[in-house]
């Protein structure tokens, strides 16, 4: 990070319950978090609400948590908040936006003809996906996570990684198929 204050200093301030920690966190990660939120919830006010909730959650969760990677920690909070908001708003009807397209794409990873294992621990699934991703190149990891975590558009993703859009699409297509096979191999059927 090139900002003046280091992440561990921010975390330390939060641990000491210093409000300056929030100020510094906002200063450093406002844009980063708002980009993530705005990709998922189109409405400006909703995005703002997600971001404000992110600071609050970070404040409430540090301590006891001591994130080793503050950027990733905040990204997870804001992304999951925005996702919940999106789900609430679009429970009945999906639009052709980035979220619904991403969800549609992820259906490639689902298994046919089996019941969803409700008792399956969410953590097991996350661990399996993380293990599978760790076996991929850094580039493949970046493509997959930028698409399905950061919800980046294909065009944006291709430009950011200096690739053709079709290359990105085919990487994602192959990865989704591989993930499905991997998860089934791990006994995880979705």
């Amino acid at each position, binding site marked *: *990070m*090139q*900002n*003046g204050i280091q992440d561990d200093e921010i975390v330390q301030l939060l641990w000491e319950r210093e409000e300056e920690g929030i100020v510094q966190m906002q*200063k*450093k990660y*406002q*844009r*980063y978090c708002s*980009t*993530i939120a705005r990709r998922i919830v189109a409405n400006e006010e909703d995005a703002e609400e997600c971001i404000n909730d992110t600071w609050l959650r970070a404040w409430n969760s540090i301590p006891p948590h001591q*994130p*080793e*990677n503050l*950027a*990733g*920690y905040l*990204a*997870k909070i804001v*992304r*999951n908040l925005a*996702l919940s908001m999106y*789900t609430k708003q679009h429970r009945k009807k999906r639009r052709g936006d980035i979220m619904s397209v*991403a*969800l*549609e794409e*992820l*259906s490639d*990873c*689902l298994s*046919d003809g089996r*019941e*969803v294992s409700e008792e399956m621990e*969410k*953590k097991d*699934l*996350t661990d399996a*996906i*993380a293990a599978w*991703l*760790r076996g991929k*190149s*850094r*580039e493949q*990891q*970046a493509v*997959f*996570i*930028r698409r*399905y*975590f*950061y919800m*980046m558009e294909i065009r*944006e993703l291709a*430009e*950011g*990684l*200096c690739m053709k859009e079709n290359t990105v699409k085919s990487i994602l297509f192959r990865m989704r198929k591989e993930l499905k096979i991997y998860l089934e191999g791990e006994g995880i059927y*979705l």
Partner: protein
Amino acid sequence: MRKDREKTGEEILLDAIGNLPEDMIAKAAEYSVFQKEAEEQGKRKEEGDIVFGEEEPEGRKAGHKYRKIVCRGLAAAACLALVMIAGNKGGELFRQYTDRHSIVSEKKEVGHQNAPRVSGGSLENSSKEKEQELKIWAEAVEDGKDKSKTKKESINNSSSQTSEESTDDNTAKEGKKELKEGVTKILQIEEVDSKEGEKVPVIKLTFGDEGGKLTYSLYSQVSKIISVTEGGVTKYVNLQDADCKSGGIVEFDTRRFAEVSWAAIPVPEWETKGIEIQNIINISIRQESGREQEIGKFVIGVKGEKYYGVFKKS
């Protein structure tokens, strides 16, 4: 049934992806084409390029086992033959031979010491290249009329350097202003004709001293590089990446704005000034070995109608 649970399955997956490890998430956001190149270099090395001074992979070691035995046998036979020749033709001849042989060995030793040692695909004696300071000049940063005005408007970084300090003594070239590391300057926009004949608002930057031997690799993260001019010859590039030799003038398109999110804010001091990032240009030096070494970023920002630029070292 399938439709009912399809939604659930997708959402479960999306939720699970949302809980991936934080380091993985942050690294994915920070991944750049430079890391991609480094990764590819590493892969090439793994696939077979053995670099001097490095141990060979196990598989290859085994492959060379028999060749080593044969070589050793041949060497032993050659030594035996030499001893026999020496014995037959007298000590003088043997001495002459061994003297010559030792000279050759010595020369080889010296040669080996003088030869650049290669490690990890890079030349260790490329420290000269590493020590090279990159100088960047902005074309038409300030013309005569606007000079005083621009000086006042120059925005400094969080350091205590004043804008007057940032502008003096750096008019290294006529009509160009040197952009010192960490100091934000106002850039001027010029309209140029693209290859297609359309008018494109560009920022012109000059990389390195004219006549220098370095080659810079540039990657414009957001908008395209319209052209590169070297030695008075302009070539149209119109791509996001381009090479330019020292003294090369590069035109960057300013029509597109950044939509990507940077986990690391490249110019935190701009946040409070309300300057939006328009583009980030990654700069690396292409070394003789072909390896690229990232040396910094040039960040272009915009506020209202004004464009700003700052060079940040890696």
